[in-house]
């Protein structure tokens, strides 16, 4: 029997997303992803001073403002013909890295983990860990109040097959609490170099406004070490325990199988080949990335703008009642193909390229421990694992970069804004490949377009009718109980969707 399920709103992601799936014989046979919120950032930027962009565009997303700020600065730098000095580049990397760490930790623990670990296990806890004891007391006190939803926001939840292993549940719960502190600490690290987070005032074309002092270096390093320890001692083991408890999910949510990354982190001069450089994995083969292969389709998107256009000359005129359209998200394609972006895409391309032996060894070590090979990575668990491994790799790189900072050296390069110019800023947000395209006429912004990670991952069908990456990943997902489609939600959340970004 065919059953239609709608998950709307899909919570524990950023923003407004709804999912519709058809389930036949316990499996998803078709899926639609709809972005449900539109603000019109690109229209708002028209006619503005180009430097407004790095501040306004950060407000696309409160979870990854740094990536938008950096992409916008990079687009402007190309148009202005300027580049950050070494300190400026390093500080940007550290700010971006800090935001990655906060985002990855937030995603695993606060957005995803409650789909796997059994929160109810806290009632059976008999140990003496203070964090868990406190949580237990809270649960008991709350239940006694007999008020509406006493255990909100943790309950109610879907019924389903949560982990039944005590250690997995206890560590997951304990680290859920500690992770709240760790992600705030990671944000604090970023703020040391950019003034505040979210929405970094210190990002400007040409570098950053903050200066380097030994006190700030010491403060940053000390916080980074704590977060790095948490990644090693909690995040990675927790992901491993969830993967051990749910090995099936190396088979679920495999997706489109094509991967794209623009590369990230500017390379300080004199360092080795970057780990995270641009690349395309198509049908398992590594290809060189060519920016001109990107187009955006709008057939099923709520825009009247023409379809199949490169973002440098794209437009985003809203048409909320457009026939056939079912999403505010456009459908970006690379060489006409559906692409997945994000930590999995970055780790897979770097692994395939093999130029960073540390990354390859680390990935191999975890695959071996989980008794799978690299072909299992494109999957729900593979995405979580890639994100956690990437957090470790990024934290390690940050520990190197912080040592390269030079107090009293400049952190930005002066520039003048030309009357005309164009620029592209391509980098990576925590969720994947992020591009900003800028045109300047008469010293003002004449066009600005963004293609954002979740635009790729949660895109609707393209003009050819090919479903987007998440839509494809949903197909074939087993759903045991149509009233509680936990499995489908797990697939969608593995992409870490950010809807404010996807539509903007």
């Amino acid at each position: 029997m065919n059953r239609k399920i709608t998950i709307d709103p899909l919570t524990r992601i950023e923003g407004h997303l709804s999912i519709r799936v058809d389930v036949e014989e316990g499996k998803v046979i078709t899926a639609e992803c709809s972005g449900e919120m539109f603000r019109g950032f690109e229209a708002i930027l028209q006619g503005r001073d180009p430097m407004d962009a790095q501040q306004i565009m950060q407000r696309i997303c409160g979870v990854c403002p740094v990536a938008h700020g950096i992409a916008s600065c990079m687009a402007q730098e190309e148009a202005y013909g300027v580049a950050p000095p070494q300190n400026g580049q390093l500080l940007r990397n550290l700010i971006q890295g800090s935001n990655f760490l906060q985002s990855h930790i937030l995603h695993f623990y606060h957005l995803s983990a409650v789909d796997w670990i059994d929160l109810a296990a806290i009632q059976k806890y008999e140990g003496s860990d203070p964090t868990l004891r406190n949580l237990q007391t809270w649960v008991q006190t709350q239940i006694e109040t007999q008020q509406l939803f006493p255990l909100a926001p943790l309950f109610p939840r879907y019924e389903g097959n949560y982990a039944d292993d005590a250690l997995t549940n206890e560590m997951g719960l304990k680290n859920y609490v500690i992770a709240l502190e760790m992600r705030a600490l990671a944000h604090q690290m970023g703020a040391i170099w950019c003034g505040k987070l979210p929405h970094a005032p210190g990002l400007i074309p040409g570098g950053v406004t903050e200066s380097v002092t030994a006190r700030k270096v010491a403060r940053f390093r000390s916080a980074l070490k704590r977060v790095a320890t948490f990644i090693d001692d909690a995040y990675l083991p927790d992901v491993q325990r969830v993967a051990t408890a749910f090995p099936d999910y190396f088979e679920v949510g495999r997706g489109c199988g094509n991967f794209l990354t623009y590369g990230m982190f500017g390379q300080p001069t004199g360092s080795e080949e970057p780990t995270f450089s641009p690349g395309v994995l198509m049908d398992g083969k590594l290809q060189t990335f060519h920016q001109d292969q990107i187009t955006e389709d709008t057939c099923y998107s709520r825009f009247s703008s023409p379809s199949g256009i490169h973002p440098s000359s794209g437009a985003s005129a809203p048409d909320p009642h457009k026939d056939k359209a079912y999403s505010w998200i456009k459908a970006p394609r690379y060489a006409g193909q559906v692409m997945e972006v994000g930590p999995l895409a970055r780790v897979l391309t770097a692994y395939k390229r093999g130029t960073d032996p540390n990354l390859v060894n680390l990935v191999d070590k975890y695959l071996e421990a989980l008794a799978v090979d690299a072909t299992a990575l494109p999957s729900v668990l593979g995405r979580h694992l890639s994100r956690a491994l990437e957090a470790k790799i990024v934290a390690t790189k940050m520990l190197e970069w912080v040592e390269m900072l030079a107090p009293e050296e400049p952190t930005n390069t002066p520039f003048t804004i030309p009357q005309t110019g164009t620029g592209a800023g391509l980098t990576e947000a925590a969720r994947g490949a992020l591009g900003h395209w800028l045109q300047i006429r008469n010293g003002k912004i004449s066009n600005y377009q963004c293609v954002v990670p979740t635009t790729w991952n949660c895109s609707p069908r393209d003009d050819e009718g090919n479903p987007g990456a998440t839509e494809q990943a949903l197909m074939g997902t087993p759903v045991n109980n149509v009233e509680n489609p936990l499995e489908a939600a797990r697939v969608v959340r593995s992409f870490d969707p950010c809807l404010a970004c996807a539509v903007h």
Partner: protein
Amino acid sequence: MHKKCVWREIAKKTSSTRFCVLVLIGTHFEVLFNNSIWGRSSSQRSSIFTKGHLVLQKNISRRDFTKLATALAGSLGLGAAAAPRTATALEKLAAGKPNVLWLQALSCSGCTVSALNSYQPDAIDLITEYMSLLFHSTISSATGSLASSVISETIDQGDFLLVVEGSIPLGMPEACMSGGRPISELIAKAAGRAKAVVAVGTCSSFGGIPAAENNPTGAVSVRDFLDSESIGKPLINLPGCPCHPDWLVGTLVHVTEFGMPSLDDDLRPTMFYSKVVHDQCPRFADYERGNFAESFSDSGCLFKLGCVGARTFSDCIHRRWNGGVNSCIDSGAPCIGCAGKDFAKKADFPLYRIGQEDALVTELAQR
């Protein structure tokens, strides 16, 4: 007075009129509490007043509660008949946690992320001790139709504080949908039943970037939206892009333990927004001495790079961000007025005005 404005006037005067009762015990003990807005009853809790402090203590029986209430009522000259009502109010106060329904409209979730950056109380304290967060889209386990039913049951039972993050697409309701309906409908329904509304962040307080010039959605602030729907509710605006966690936490605690805070004409709590950035700025002395930064690396007042600290009401600059590690101006970035009413609104008023001796210079010089 225009009808819609009446409730706002009331809201402004709450600390002395409708919402709060001042309880004086002896000469030194005083506590303000709120008799109608917050909390559900909790029969297991009571409160004890100590000099200048309010101590919440668990596990005091209903009998003790009534005794304490009778004593209070007596000291207020209310007579024994008033005691039961006082007891209920006390219980609510002691319960100490408002039910919160947090809805997002045209938002970036930055105010949510900022709230999670709260230090002392930390995020976990916030969720477990300072509010009963009945629903928040980014954190709630409930998803899909389960989430929709949590929202509607919360609205039906009525005893909650509505927090709105993001502006409302008044001109294009389809620009923000939840559960198949425009979010504006949900917010109108929730606001109609809520005890009070807190607009968190500049978008919901003043429209913010989604309401900037050339925006296609007709985005408006919560205040304008409630006006357009003729919904009269006490409303508190907490602008800031994002809202500082202290402003949110401080407001929740004030409202729960002491009643409505005093608000300015723009419905901002005066305890956070009564001074402009400029007046509290660490570079004020540079400004006074005419020591101005000419480019981003320079020390000195950032005025000539476009700083609008002189017209932006906010205590962010001395409160500082992310546990106090930094601030915009300390990091060398001019104030772009993110907590201001007209933040980013006008296309021809750039956020940075390097070397421009514009009208602001005159404005500042005349202060």
